[in-house]
């Protein structure tokens, strides 16, 4: 009887250990699903969609040294889209691409439970609440960019690495190597993140240094193989395998300045400064509970390392002039883990269960209100720091007007569309179902009859003006029609 009871109890615990992450996954996914289609498509998402098309073409993926990052996201989403029969951008919808990221975001929440043995059940639940409902995590789970996938791989690596540093099992080292290789194949920022992370979690390992060395060498070799496989198109283009190394110089230069250079305190402002759309509760609550967690669990070596890790990542990211708001996620993740510990400690220390429940409800309500404001209601408002160079909802109007023009034309959507602008993204996504569309940065000599969309710098090439359409805050495009070759038509109104 006693033996049976123990088995039943263990089975229940095992079932609960699977059920809770599954429920967390479902809840996180439900939070991430709204607005996947209707939020205007960001320029980065549009470019990424075209790179998927390129990845699925016979020539396959090739890395660009300056932008657009590694291939894992393109292979992952490309495989999913191909299986759904969508290999060209005109067959894709925004929700299809974003669903891949939403699933990665929900998986990130579920993956937190890999740390339950180390962090504790209550702290893991708390962390799941902050990551599952926190506005920055939700926002970037709804945009087709690399950050959430990178974060998922990083969390997986953290869980594997921590177990390896205790056991030294070579299988864990190999798994860690695969995850590190995938991270490097996802985004270049993985390199400094790994360089900062490994020493933090390696120090204090009970493993003899020889076993540590063997594990690290094995992981490094595996990571290099993974990078080679992904960058070479799984061996089809071996000449592209070293592209990532070739980009190091440019990426360092980019990190040290250039277009997205901001002062060191910018992340504090993005994460914590109130704007007209409200107070960023997630920034304050995560930071506050993280400090509490660090204090209350200061004897826990994992928690101490999480604190150091978060600090190093924050200092590194803040010291680099190059900043974008999604880069905050990398230090918000360890802070959210610490915040989970803080929330668990607070739960245990509050004098009554009723008070603890009320405090929990308040935290959830504040997080939820902020997420609603930033991720849904004001998702492309320039006052929303998470919305970095967001595309405008005015693109819907442009799409409707172009559809009307196409409907009125015997050519339908085959009509000629000429885009002449220095800055025209994300129009290639907006116009993806107009197959006869060309793009020029400078006005061509032979603009032909048809629809013309020009930027302000080329406005003299329109015979007349309609009202402007906003691509992004401060970036405009003007629609016009040329009814005859431009050489026969006076271009000035």
């Amino acid at each position, binding site marked *: 009887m006693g033996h049976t009871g123990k088995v039943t109890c263990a089975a229940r615990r095992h079932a609960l250990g699977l059920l809770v992450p599954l429920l967390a996954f479902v809840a996180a996914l439900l939070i991430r699903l709204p607005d996947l289609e209707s939020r205007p498509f960001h*320029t980065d998402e549009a*470019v990424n969609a*075209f*790179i998927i098309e390129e990845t699925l073409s016979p020539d396959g993926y090739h890395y*660009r040294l*300056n*932008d*657009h990052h590694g291939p894992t996201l393109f292979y992952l989403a490309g495989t999913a889209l191909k299986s759904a029969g969508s290999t060209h951008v005109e067959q894709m919808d925004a929700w299809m691409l974003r669903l891949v990221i939403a699933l990665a975001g929900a998986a990130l929440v579920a993956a937190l439970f890999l740390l339950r043995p180390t962090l504790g059940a209550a702290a893991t639940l708390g962390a799941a609440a902050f990551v599952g409902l926190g506005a920055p995590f939700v926002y970037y789970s709804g945009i087709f960019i690399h950050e959430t996938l990178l974060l998922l791989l990083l969390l997986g690596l953290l869980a594997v690495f921590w177990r390896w540093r205790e056991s030294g099992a070579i299988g864990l080292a190999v798994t860690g190597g695969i995850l590190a290789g995938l991270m490097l194949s996802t985004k270049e920022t993985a390199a400094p993140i790994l360089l900062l992370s490994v020493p933090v979690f390696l120090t204090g390992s009970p493993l003899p240094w020889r076993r540590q060395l063997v594990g690290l060498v094995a992981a490094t070799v595996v990571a290099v193989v993974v990078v080679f496989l992904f960058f070479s198109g799984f061996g089809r283009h071996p000449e592209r395998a070293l592209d990532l190394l070739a980009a190091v110089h440019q990426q360092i230069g980019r990190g040290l300045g250039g*277009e*997205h250079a901001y002062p060191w305190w910018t992340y504090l402002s993005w994460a914590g400064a109130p704007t007209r759309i409200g107070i960023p509760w997630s920034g304050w609550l995560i930071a506050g509970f993280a400090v509490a967690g660090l204090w209350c669990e200061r004897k826990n070596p994992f928690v101490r390392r999480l604190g150091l890790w978060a600090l190093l990542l924050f200092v590194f990211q803040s010291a680099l002039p190059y900043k*974008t708001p999604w880069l905050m996620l990398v230090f918000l993740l360890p802070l959210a883990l610490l915040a989970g510990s803080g929330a668990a400690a607070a739960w245990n220390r509050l004098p009554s269960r009723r008070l603890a429940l009320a405090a929990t409800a308040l935290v959830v309500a504040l997080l939820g209100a902020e997420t609603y404001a930033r991720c849904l209601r004001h998702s492309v*408002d*320039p*006052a929303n720091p998470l919305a*970095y*160079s967001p595309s*405008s*909802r*005015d693109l819907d*109007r442009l799409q409707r*007007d172009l559809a*009307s*023009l196409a409907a*009125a*034309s*015997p*050519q339908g959507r085959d*009509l000629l569309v000429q*885009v002449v602008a220095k*800055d*025209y*993204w994300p*129009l*290639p996504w907006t116009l993806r179902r107009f197959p006869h569309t*060309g*793009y*020029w*940065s400078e006005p061509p000599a032979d603009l*032909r*009859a048809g629809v013309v969309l020009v930027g*302000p*710098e080329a*406005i*003299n090439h329109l015979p*007349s*003006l*309609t*009202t*402007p359409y*906003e691509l*992004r*805050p*401060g*970036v*405009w495009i003007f*629609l016009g*029609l040329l*009814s*005859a070759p431009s050489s026969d038509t006076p271009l000035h*109104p």
Partner: protein
Amino acid sequence: MKRPSLRFLTAVLSSAIAATALHAEDKVPLQTELPKPLFVGTPVPVKVDNLEPARSGKRPDFLIPASSKNLALNKPVTGSDSMPLLGELSLITDGDKDGSEGSYVELAKGAQWVQIDLGAPAVIDAMLVWHFHAQVRVYLGVVVQVSDDPSFATGVTTVYNNDAKNLLGKGAGKDPAYIETYEGRLIDAKGAKGRYVRLYSQGNTANNLNHYIEVEVWGTPAK
């Protein structure tokens, strides 16, 4: 500039296509490789404090008395930079709102002003200001004042001020910063009275220089 409606544009397109179709049997479709879009990186946002939210669609009509006219047209202009880097101050009131070089005056770095003498005191209903619209820019510290005193020492009415940090010393303004477009900035002067209009700026988000394409001052002579 004309702004035909979408319906009109649709009609023009349909007619053009129909006319082309009449001779379709003599022609073959033009097969040409259209240039593909060039991939770009993350765009840099235009970030300015108190930046006006984007407006969708046409600017709402602004009603002025029927007798109101552009009193600034061809009127003399003076300024803090009497030797502009490009162009002449007279371009500001010559009626040409084209955005290309040759149509605008470029003033020196930092805080600069230009002043229009309307010739006689006037009741001003509205102003339209074009700084520059060939590129996305926000001009900083835009302050517009009206006075009967050419030195602007007395009787000054401020009709627009987005100098939130009071860098020009004219008082901290609460009006929004805005992005330059071909439409020009419409300023409600609310019947301000004066003979002189002075416009300040302190560089822009692209560089520290100051530019003016055109300024229109709509109103009626004061009685």
